C-alpha cells in the first residue's frame, strides 16, 4: 500500500542520454512535486503540479521536463544528462487547500550519470 511510489529506485546512465522517472500517488492528493537531493543531503524543490497544472517551476535547466498525465501521476523526463544531474530525486504529494502543506515523499530515485 505504497502511498507515493516512484520508479526506478536506481538509475545509472551515461552522459548525453535521456531518461525518465515515474511517480504515482494513491493518496487522492491534488498536488505533486519533484525535489532534488544532492550529495550533501540538501533538498530543493524543482517543480510542483496542481491538478495537472504547473504551479512551481524553480530555476531548473530546461533539459528537465515534468509531465502530469493526471493528478495521480507526475513524471520527470531529463534530456542530455550531465554529470551534475547525479542526485537522488524525490517525488512528493500533498492536498492543496489545507492550512498546512504536509507533503508525503516517495522512496527516491538515485540517479548516477557516468
Amino acid at each position, binding site marked *: 500500500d505504497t502511498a507515493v511510489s516512484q520508479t526506478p529506485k536506481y538509475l545509472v546512465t551515461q552522459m548525453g542520454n535521456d531518461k525518465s522517472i515515474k511517480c504515482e500517488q494513491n493518496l487522492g492528493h491534488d498536488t505533486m512535486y519533484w525535489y532534488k537531493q544532492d550529495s550533501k543531503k540538501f533538498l530543493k524543490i524543482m517543480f510542483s503540479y496542481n491538478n495537472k497544472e504547473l504551479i512551481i517551476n524553480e530555476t531548473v535547466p530546461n533539459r528537465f521536463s515534468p509531465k502530469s498525465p493526471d493528478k495521480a501521476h507526475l513524471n520527470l523526463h531529463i534530456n542530455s544528462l550531465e554529470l551534475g544531474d547525479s542526485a537522488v530525486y524525490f517525488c512528493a504529494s500533498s492536498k492543496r487547500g489545507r492550512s*498546512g*502543506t*504536509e507533503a508525503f515523499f516517495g522512496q527516491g530515485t538515485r540517479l548516477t550519470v557516468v
Partner: protein
Amino acid sequence: GESVGLHLPTLSVQEGDNSIINCAYSNSASDYFIWYKQESGKGPQFIIDIRSNMDKRQGQRVTVLLNKTVKHLSLQIAATQPGDSAVYFCAERAGFGNEKLTFGTGTRLTIIP
C-alpha cells in the same frame, strides 16, 4: 534570499537521553513549519508540524517549539532510541496558499547505544 538553516550538522546523543535539534529561518512571512525525518535510503517522513499562530506543539516523544521573534524552530526528542538515528530536516512554507516547502540543510542525529 530565503533560507532555512540548522545550527548543528551532526549530533550524537546517548540512548535514553533527550535531544534537541535547532533550525533558523529567515522568511518572516513563513506561516507553517514541518519537521521531517529521513532514514538512510528512504524518503523524508513527516514527524510533526506547527503553524505560526502557535509556539509549541507536542506529539509522541517529540515537541516542536517555534520562536517567531528570533525566527527559530526546534525539535525535541525525548528518551531517544536507536531508531531515532536519522537526518532531520526542518521545512517552512512561505505563506498560506504557497505550496513551496523550503528545506533546511539537515542535522544527522546519531543515537549511541
